[in-house]
């Protein structure tokens, strides 16, 4: 790996947003293409951040800071990736379900997915089923990802899946769910395709879903 890519990689892990932006710019000026910077710098760095989080070496603040640094670099790459028609790992429509305003979990998942090369359409929080449906159709999403913190709002995941079915989109999208009260067996029970216990595992689940 080129030294500058290595610096980008370390910059993300250390959460140094300024350095990452600077080095990405430098790499681009040196003629390294955006896809290489993404695939060899940003994505492996966020995978390492996910690993550090899973192993208990990183906590939520370190993960947020690293994700912000990654986004700093990604902001510079995005237009170039689009221009070069580089395909994302998958397109994900994400939001917290109707009635739920708690979004840190959803935000972490969105950042980690972005860091794994997915394209994210973030619908924010308190998203009604019809909005998920509309966005999934409009953006031709591969995955609809839903989050809920509350036992009382978790049930809206089921109604969203029903709305997706009713709209005839169920075969076209995979459904990924997560959040404090959500379990693997609940995912199974309501007919979701995947479950992410935390942000890092959500990425693994999303990768498995698009590979399937």
């Amino acid at each position, binding site marked *: 790996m080129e030294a500058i890519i290595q610096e980008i990689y370390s910059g993300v892990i250390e*959460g140094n947003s300024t350095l990452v932006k600077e080095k990405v710019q430098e790499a681009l000026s040196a003629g390294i293409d955006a896809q290489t910077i993404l695939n060899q710098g940003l994505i492996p760095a966020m995978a390492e951040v996910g690993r550090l989080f899973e192993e208990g070496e990183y*906590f*939520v603040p370190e993960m947020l800071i690293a994700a912000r640094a990654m986004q700093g670099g990604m902001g510079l790459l995005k237009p170039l990736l689009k221009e070069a028609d580089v395909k994302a790992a998958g397109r994900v429509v994400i939001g917290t379900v109707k*009635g739920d*305003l*708690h979004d840190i979990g959803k935000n972490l998942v969105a950042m980690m997915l972005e860091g794994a090369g997915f394209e994210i359409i973030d619908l924010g929080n308190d998203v009604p089923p019809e909005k998920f449906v509309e966005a999934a159709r409009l953006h031709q999403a591969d995955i609809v990802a839903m989050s809920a913190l*509350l036992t*009382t*709002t978790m049930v809206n995941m089921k109604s969203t899946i029903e709305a997706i079915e009713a709209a005839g989109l169920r075969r076209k999208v995979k459904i990924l769910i997560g959040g404090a009260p959500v379990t693997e067996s609940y995912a199974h029970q309501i007919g979701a395709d995947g479950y992410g216990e935390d942000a890092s595992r959500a990425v693994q689940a999303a990768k498995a879903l698009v590979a399937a």
Partner: protein
Amino acid sequence: MKPRERVMLALSHKEPDRIPIDLGATIVSSITRGAYTALKQHLGLPQEPVTMLDYVQQLPYLSEDLLEHFEIDFRMVQLPAATAPDLQLFEEGDYYAFIDRWGSKLHMPKQGGLYFDWVDFPIKELSLEALERYEWPKPDPPEYVSRLGEQARYLYEHTDYALVGSAVIGGGIFEQPARTIGLENFLTALVTEPKFADRLMEQITDIYIESCSQYLDQVGPYIQVFTYWDDLSTQDGWMIRPELYRRMIKPKQRRLVEAIRRKTNARLFFHACGAVFDLIPDLIDLGFDIVNPVQVSARGMDTRRLKQTYGKDIVFWGGVDSQHVLPFGSRRDVEEEVKRRIDDLAPGGGFVLAAVHNIQDQVPPENVIAMFETALRYGKYQ
């Protein structure tokens, strides 16, 4: 045995006649509006208009007949939580909204909303100058506090209940900053802007010390339990690096505890959701006597292991699973859950039974009844 005596024995790690039972002693062991109304209706208790104690969590003042029905051992003496003293509700699009005493805006969806949540924050810029400009909230006015003092004295002299109070006028020292600048901003600031984060938390600590001191001057002699809350964990473990907690947050909690201790002999109650197994030694070290809500569904929160490891040094308050069993379990599941927690946590005293956090709207009245009836029947010592 009288409730206060029962509670004091249990809190002193001795076995009274039965385990003490809590509903509504705190704003983290109560019942939400919808579940409360349904429960009263189911029990055939009179339905008087509901008054809200805590708008954020939609907790009503609980009626005396309900508390008597379940032989609840506690009564609350407390300031309204985390809301502006003269709360002005307004509508904003699809949401009900209000501004809390810290200047933060909260929203609750008009349709299907069950709580208010923080959506906009008064401190936008993570700088010391922004803190200078910020208008800090004031503790409740003295006449309000002296009214609470009278109420506490009356309850102490005319009832046998154990009395519980608090004067933490917001979230904990770790939680409140997130409600003032936003959670992601705060978590980031702890690492990238430590001076700012530290100053913000020190100011909050100062406010709590003032508020708690004024409150305890009036109420302190009459209460048996004083509550503090600070959610530091996720369901998997620490939200932040434990060393960071011990360096930046714990010393401020200690400062608050010392101020509280100067004013009251009440037992100190620490509410922390999530996987707190590894936090408990810090709470013991700080001088807390009680840990709540014992979120049994979180990682490592096995009640038998908790009791074995910390049972001599801390009282467990809570324990009945509210994430899976209470809302979604059968009556039978609830009975088994209650028995299991009693078997694990009650031996030798040191256990107060309550739901893990507030009982939520969707919990069927039958399950609430099963919980308290099993506790009363199965929670007898000997």
